[in-house]
């Protein structure tokens, strides 16, 4: 299974990856990151098909998808 890695302190909290994830595996975390925004977070035990939508829509280099 593919794996999403998120660098939380880079995230600006635009929420586009959460919006476009076809499996709804991403969410905004409840705590704030170094920038003071709620960063994207991969839900616990959620699935990833490796479609890369989150990587494609992320403007801030936060997301890597490893297969």
């Amino acid at each position, binding site marked *: 299974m593919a794996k999403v890695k998120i660098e939380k302190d*880079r995230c*600006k*909290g*635009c*929420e*586009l990856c959460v*919006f*476009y994830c076809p499996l709804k595996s991403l969410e905004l975390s409840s705590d704030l990151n170094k920038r003071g*925004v709620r960063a994207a977070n991969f839900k616990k035990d959620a699935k990833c098909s*490796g*479609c*890369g*939508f989150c*990587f*494609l*829509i*992320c*403007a*801030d*280099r936060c*997301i*890597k*998808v*490893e*297969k």
Partner: protein
Amino acid sequence: MKNEFLPPKSLRDVNTHYCSGCGHGILHRLVAQVIDELGLRERVIGVAPVGCAVLAYNYWDFDVSEAAHGRALAVATGIKRSRPEKIVFTYQGDGDLASIGIAETLHTANRGENLTCVFVNNACYGMTGGQMAPTTMIGQKTTTTPWGRDPAFGEGWPLKVSELLAPLKGVSYLARSSISKPQGVRQTYQYIKKAFINQIEKKGFSMVEVLSPCPTIWKKTPIEAAKWIDQEMVKEFPLGVIKE
């Protein structure tokens, strides 16, 4: 298997100054990806505009020059003519390319300079706080059109730069795409790649117009901004290859 979902080498490992939901970050990555894919990193010279992308040279790991507001294509012409073996591209906003720099844009295209141009259409002046751009939509509120752009007030209609350049003989490739959703990001990558390949094959002027969100100035959330592109902007600026 090659993993396509890792940041490209030509994109520096730094944080950008762009707002949350801004399209510039995605486009910087796409340009870097194309340059890595075509192996142009040691051959390419970029020309950055004045606008929000003015600091693009901090984010790309190849040679980048800066140009005065609107003059990126004129600077690029000079670079290309003196170093024809280099691959030269410009990266410009709509205020830069379509407003103050429209003369340079038209004449560079008309001369058929062998250049690649990435045109970021966000329907406003982002950096200076959200004034009207020539590409601003009818009814769109900006600081200089507080009641919405209205042709009856003498504010004109959205300027379709790609359609404007299409009849010129020197222009070899024109395409328009949007980066409001992942599918559009993929499509934009293909268009930009084609525009660079055209330059390698010495075909003449190529431009890719990209509809890009500016949530801060549009006063929308990033998701609303992406939806606004898909629902409103594409009606005025239809997507696809315009000339090939």
